[in-house]
């Protein structure tokens, strides 16, 4: 078992996240102008879109890390991939809820089928929701890691493909006030958006490192307990889909 410490640099990273997040919130509330048509509620955009983008990037990141596992067969890559997808799911559920709130406030419905980004996001989330059940239903740890990695790679490739298909399926009904590429996002809004995207990206990285550190520490403690107390007295591992 490698004795990599994922806690290294965690404090600095956490501080950077805190500062960027505060800066982002200050910009959101005091700097970015109110949207002319949607008013105050449009500010949820600075939370919703970064959450969703980071979540998708997290899924793809999990797939890339899974390639590492299949190439090396080293369990730590599987753990990294697991944590990346786990965090992606949490961010994704946040993105879905904030998106729903935004939809209700600006279009009057909790769910809007003709918003392709929202729909494709739901499909991706439905797919990745099966990641943990899949892990649970394979007992052999080595096979579990291998199959979960295959799933992560397929899922990571599915993210962009799914987006293309759903995008093509939907004619835009609503005006796209806020697209990343178009020039109709005023510079002040653009700056706020970039800062909050950075803040959420940092948050993701911090949480990823944090969970890795915790998982690593827990497995080391369990190993020490087992050597000191013997196999019988060491508490059995709790129910978790994470690789041990």
């Amino acid at each position, binding site marked *: 078992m490698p004795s990599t410490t994922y806690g290294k640099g965690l404090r600095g990273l956490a501080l950077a996240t805190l500062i960027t997040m505060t800066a982002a919130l200050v910009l959101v509330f005091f700097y970015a102008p109110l949207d002319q048509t949607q008013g105050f509620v449009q500010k949820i955009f600075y939370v919703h879109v970064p959450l969703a983008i980071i979540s998708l990037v997290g899924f793809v990141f999990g797939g890339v890390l899974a390639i590492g596992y299949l190439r090396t067969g080293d369990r730590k890559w599987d753990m990294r991939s697991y944590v990346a997808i786990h965090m992606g799911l949490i961010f994704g559920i946040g993105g879905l809820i904030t998106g729903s709130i935004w939809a209700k406030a600006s279009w009057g419905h909790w769910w809007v089928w003709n918003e392709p980004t929202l729909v494709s996001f739901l499909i991706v989330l*439905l797919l990745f929701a*099966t990641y943990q059940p899949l892990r649970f*239903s*394979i007992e052999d740890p080595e096979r579990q890691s291998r199959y979960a990695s295959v799933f992560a790679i397929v899922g990571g490739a*599915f993210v962009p493909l799914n987006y293309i*298909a759903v995008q093509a399926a939907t004619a835009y009904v609503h005006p796209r006030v806020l697209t990343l590429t178009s020039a109709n996002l005023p510079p002040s809004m653009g700056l706020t958006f970039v800062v909050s995207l950075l803040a959420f990206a940092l948050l993701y990285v911090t949480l990823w490192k944090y969970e890795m550190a915790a998982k690593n520490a827990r497995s080391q403690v369990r190993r020490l307990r087992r050597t000191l107390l013997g196999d019988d007295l060491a508490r059995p591992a709790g129910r978790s889909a994470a690789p041990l």
Partner: protein
Amino acid sequence: MRTALILLRKDLRLELRTLETVPAMVLFALVTIVIFHFGLNQNAIDGQLAAGVLTVTVLFAAMLGINRLFVAEREQGGFDAFLLAPVDRTAMLVAKAAALFLFLAALEVIAVPAFGLFLLGPSLGPPLPGLILVLALADLGLAVIGTLVSAIAVHTRARDLIGPMLGLPLLIPALIATARAAGPLLAAGHPASTPPTRWLEILALYDVVFALLAYAVFDFLLED
């Protein structure tokens, strides 16, 4: 390639002798059509609704085949025998996907005319060539993704649950494209004679990408 052909022949012979999968898929599809008749309370449907019903019927029937695809290999030790043989493991992917494709084609030979007879408002004749093209592309996607998902699911404890749970979301983009491509073909009045190319392209792109992806990862699912 020769190995794949031998494996495919074995699968087809097994199916012809036991008649385990395809008849079940066909019956399931027929029952689904009847259920749609009552569920929608319609005697005849057309256009996008008809395309959707046909797509869903084929998809759910395909799920039966996908769940059964590797069961014999696992229960009768086919995996072990295959791994012992000095052959390329990709042959298994090619053979199983081809078998599933043929099962789906056999299913559609019966299910599509039955759908035309029971539920479809406009005549099935004119849109048939276009429909065959769309269904062939859809079957390709179903076969590739189905084989991949089935190979993952067969080694899990809850294999009948994991298969559809993984497979359905992965297949959604292919289904969107299939239903949208078939919709104009089945329209009442003046149906289109050819399916919209944009959807055919998306379907084909999906098939190609997943075929490459399955090719890349399939070996890891057989390793032991």
